[in-house]
């Protein structure tokens, strides 16, 4: 695992919330599934530690951006399923805008040639 870690990217501070919200846009999921989805979507480049993922899920729920309920997982065990709320969707679009502005700004600095629009 240590070897694999070296190839992975560290998650940028403050982006985990956005990634979780984005992942849940496709439909409800439990914690493990969300982690796996982020990993798969990023072609194994991003790996979310459970120690960060679960507190983040609860934080988002506390803000009212997620709603959770008990369901039964593929392992035939009770699992907590998270679902995006309307407020969560609005938050996602806000974070997406901020993110693209940030990328744009960093891009201008790193690459002063004609701006590259995302």
């Amino acid at each position, binding site marked *: 695992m240590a070897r694999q870690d070296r190839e992975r990217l560290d998650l940028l501070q403050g982006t985990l919330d956005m990634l979780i919200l984005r992942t849940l846009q496709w439909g409800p999921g439990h*914690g*493990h599934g969300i982690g796996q989805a982020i990993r798969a979507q990023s072609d194994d480049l991003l790996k979310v*530690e459970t120690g960060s993922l679960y507190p983040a899920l609860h934080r988002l729920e506390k803000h009212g951006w997620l709603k959770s309920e008990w369901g039964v*997982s*593929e*392992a*035939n*065990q009770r*699992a*907590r399923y998270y679902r995006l709320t309307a407020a969560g969707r609005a938050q996602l679009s806000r974070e997406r805008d901020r993110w693209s502005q940030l990328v744009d700004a960093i891009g201008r600095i790193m690459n002063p040639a004609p701006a590259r629009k995302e």
Partner: protein
Amino acid sequence: MRPHIPDNDDLDEEIRGHLAVSIKERIDRGEDPASARLAALKEFGNVTLTRDAMRAVWSPRWLDMAEALWQDIRVALRSLMRAKGLVATVVVTLALGIGANAAIFSVVREVLLRPLVNRDEDRLVYIRQSVPAVGADNLTFSVPEIDEFKSRTRTIAAFGDFSTIDFTMIGLGLDPRVVKAGVVGGSFFDVMGLRPVLGRLLTATDDGPKAAGAAVLTYRFWTTALNSDPTVIGKTIRLGTRTATVVGVLEPSVPYPAATEIIANVVTSPHHLGATMVTNRAHRMTELFGRLAPGTSLEGARAELTTVHAAMVRAHPEAYSVKGNVQLTVTKLRDQIAAPARTILLVLLAAAAVVFIIACSNVANLILARSVRREGELAVRAALGAGSGALRRTLLAESVLLCGAGAVLGVILAQPLIALVSRYAARFSVRALDVNVDTTVVWVGAGLAMAAAVLLAYVPRLPSPHAPAGLGLASGAVRITPGTNRRLRIFATTQIAFSFVLLAGAGMLLATLVTLQTARTGFNLRQVLAVDVPTPSLGLADAKAINFYQEVVRRVGGMPGVDGVAVGSFTPWRDAGSFGSGFQFSVEGYRPADGEEYPRGRMRMVSPGFFAVLGVPMIAGRDFTEADRVGNELVSIVSQSVAQRLFPNGDAVNRHLMWTDPVFLIYGQPVPRRIVGVVADVEDENVVPGSALTIYQPVRQMGVAGRLFVHAAGDPYALVPAITRVIRNISAEQPVERAATLEDVRAEVLSPERVNAFVFSGFAGIALLIAVVGVAGVLAFSVSTRTREFGIRLAVGSAPRHLMTRVLSEGVVIAAIGIAAGAAGGFALARVATRFFATVQLPGALPIVGAAVVLIGAAGAASLLPAARASRVDVMRALRAE
């Protein structure tokens, strides 16, 4: 909608669900169940940490902090348990500081800050007439003056009047006794805004000469003398020659201007109904209160009353002092009541604050020394990643614990202190008697403890995260930095400086007390018993009263063990103030220059033998005799100061004098009295020795007496029961009260000075004790950290005696600097204080030098132990120490 807050079971189940999915995936990929489980757990990481992080999302932030602080406090408790000596010193020191402050503040709050019970007490004013130039600070008012105020002012909605008079009261099942009574008009209780607890108070229907006699009992009298007997209402009491019905009991309230036992209407006092009282403008005996009219301010009322008063003085020049400017003061009643106690309480508060500062700086010292010793521990914690906030919190937890314990002990200590201080303050303001132990003490204690705790937590330096900590970590040894050393010394110096101020102040009070106690009074103090034997005042030269006193003198004089007996009108010191500030008189051949007033003299009535009994020497002429009585030539005896001032040629005897004071106009035109003798000066009003113009007149020509003086051969108090019996045989209803030797009377009058000195000495003693502990602590610490230095010094040949002197001199230098700072600070403080208080005395040289000597001596003594230790350092051990 608020999301459901998950509990620990929910969180555990969520984690179990995660692991189950993770394991299933691995098994689906072909791993065997056991290793799949291990791998899943390994991937998940620390389950407990994750769960705590999830829970922390839902719990409020303050709960986390409280939990962290609780953790810190538990650690602090454990670490303090290992330093019991330090804890005890710190807690006791803080408790002394906090207790003294809490106690005095409780009294200050009650006496100076709390409103009176009177309705709308903010609108209640007290009006006073005075002539400061001749020392008459309260002239009171006459009935014509009050009537004029009533008809000519608009800013005062209503006036209330109150005069004090002594009645012999019979009834209510009590022994015949002289009660202090207030005589009031019908508006008094309404103006004062007071309510009854039982029955009713006096109203306008009780006013005037035709009303029935009615009396209200004060709450104190009702509860103490009558056991709160509810059947008292409607009972009849005899007051002198009149009777009155008890109509009610007054609610507990501040008695002002006088603490009386009953308050009666005007009809009970024949004196109040007499023509003199009603028509003579100079016959003043009434105190005046007012209630501000709606919409008027104190300033407005003051302006109007002053104008009316000035017009009054202009219109009736004969009734007012020519020389002294008659002044009118209008103050809120609350301020008037608090005024005498204000200065003394503020001074006490300042003293308590100084003790608190000393206590804090001493505790800061101890804490600083301790924190230097644990710099190693703090460095280890900093190296392990504790932020400076966390380190501060540890220190804060320790100081909160220490100060909290100090506050608890201080509050416990404050309870008896409050009783002590309020009894003391009661001499200046009656309100102090009502001081209770309430939550104020707790709040003040807690506030002070918090202040101290925060202060103390910021005293020690934290190890800098940038400084190389290696050395400290490795050796664990104490390395005292020059900065720390300087701070320790500054704290010790501060303590000495403040202690010096307190010691010098206490020394000054003690010196005053000693001066007063050893002053020559001119009286025989030990063997003379003074007894109050009052008779109702029945007018001038009342034959019945004169005969009564003649009989008392004859019978008491015949008792065994009695060397001499006399009656008079005035017990020295105890009766001070009861005759005002003296009366104007004139002597034959003396004319005051233009604009000069006639001199004022004290008037005393004495019987033959008075001077011999009290031990006052006759200087010229003769004593009064039995022949000096009504119908014979009017005679007087004067004090030496009168003879010297008004008869500079030394020929006072056989010249004449007469009372010219307007107060006596009711008795007719002044009549000359022949001076038959001159006696030595005595000071019977004030405890401070002085010489006052005094004129004595024979009891048999005036009738007024009331005080019996007995010169005893043996123990004066042994005579008291027999004297009482003898007098009751003459008149069964005669009060015989307050028997005491002149020595004890004087001690009683001096007791405020004694308590002053006692209280301040107490403060100074506490301060001295704390300062000595402080100096000893600093030096002990300094010696223990310099063991190596002393070892080297001894190794290269220093004599142990030399090291000892060095340490001793360090202590003395700290004390000397402290004293210099204290003297400079104290002097500056006195300069500032003179701006706020009328009388600020700088202590004389003796108390200052004395305080300095005591402090230097104490500092030297405190340095002895550390110095001895320095000289006994084991060279080899010291050198191997690092």
